[in-house]
């Protein structure tokens, strides 16, 4: 075994040594680094700005996380809201925006970023996907996003999607203004509540989450710290409960 390792080690070093040396920093690369530094500086300023905006509505950011219903036990009102049809009478625009939703177009995927806030709980992975409008224009989201899961080697995971009602409904609260349209001003965040159960065979590598909005698929960041749910029954499908878009609480 040691001889085998030595042989491979020699081969790798020999191959690496064959590469031509390039001791000088190419000017084009220096330019790229400078642009990157400038971009990062702008991003820091933008993040600080967003934090300040967030501080204004900080109470919402620190609101307790909602509870999701375990698979197979929908809330009494779930069936009534699975269609999630738009309200015939437009109502005032929702938080986080006061713009009238009827005057703005739906959000293109290119101006959205998605992050996950997930935790393991009672045999499931529950939490929310936060969708942030990183564009410079106000736009709207409505209905349910298509969510795809892959394992750590990017092989698709077969999950059965189960629509669930929004958080406000599960908690018996009144609908937010503008519902079911969620209007996102630049920097504002919409939420999708999710609960994932029963992945068989057991797999502890964090899964890759992707969400498709407006025909564009975007990677979900921040999900790599959470292991998939445990296998609770190999004969049962893996299920992913997905709520509709709703304003961040």
């Amino acid at each position: 075994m040691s001889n085998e390792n030595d042989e491979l080690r020699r081969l790798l070093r020999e191959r690496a040594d064959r590469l031509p040396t390039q001791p000088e920093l190419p000017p084009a690369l220096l330019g790229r680094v400078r642009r990157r530094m400038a971009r990062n500086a702008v991003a820091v300023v933008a993040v600080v700005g967003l934090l300040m905006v967030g501080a204004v509505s900080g109470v919402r950011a620190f609101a307790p996380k909602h509870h999701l219903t375990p698979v197979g036990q929908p809330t009494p009102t779930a069936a009534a809201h699975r269609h999630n049809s738009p309200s015939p009478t437009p109502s005032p625009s929702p938080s986080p925006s006061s713009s009238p939703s009827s005057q703005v177009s739906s959000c293109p995927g290119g101006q959205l970023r998605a992050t996950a806030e997930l935790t393991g709980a009672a045999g499931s992975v529950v939490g929310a996907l936060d969708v942030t409008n990183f564009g410079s224009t106000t736009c709207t989201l409505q209905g349910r996003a298509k969510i795809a899961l892959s394992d750590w080697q990017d092989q698709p995971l077969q999950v059965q999607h189960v629509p669930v009602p929004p958080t406000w409904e599960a908690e018996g609260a009144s609908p937010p203004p503008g519902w079911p349209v969620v209007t996102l001003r630049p920097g504002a965040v919409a939420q999708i509540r999710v609960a994932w159960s029963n992945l068989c065979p057991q797999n502890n590598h964090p899964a890759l989450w992707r969400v498709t909005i407006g025909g564009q698929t975007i990677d979900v960041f921040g999900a790599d710290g959470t292991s998939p749910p445990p296998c609770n029954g190999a004969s049962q499908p893996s299920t992913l409960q997905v709520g509709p878009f709703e304003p961040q609480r």
Partner: protein
Amino acid sequence: MPGPRDRGRARGLEELYRSHAQDAVRLAYLITGDHGLAEDLAHDAFVRLAGRLAHLRDPDAFGAYLNRTVVNLARSHYRRQKVQRTALGRVAMEPQSMTAPDHARREELWTALQAIDWPKRAAIVLRLYEDLSERRVAELLGCRPGTVRSLLSRGLAELRPMIRGEEDE
């Protein structure tokens, strides 16, 4: 006209590049088997890392950060494009310029190394070339040490016939 601060920064970047870029290109090359791709990955990694140099927790560990970024970029590359078959085809088409039997066997071993799945190949390169511990390899690949042991074992098993052939000579 760049000021003294800009010139100083540029000198610092050049020094970082001189010290670490070549090692990063080598690592990327051993993982990908493609010199052009390796340079692209190493340069991308350098740009990303140097772009946030001021925010690095330990700037002295730039080389380690750079290697980690190279591995991450290689992983993303394979995830996105699934180019393993293409790379294998490209390697297979490389002219076998060395005609001596020993060199031919080494070429075969190199080709075989490029043909195995990228996680196994990356584990072998990080463990044997970079001399990293299994735990450190696991950190870089984003998996458990047990998975690294499995990747190494299976990867070496796939290469064993070539290596045995060399030893039998």
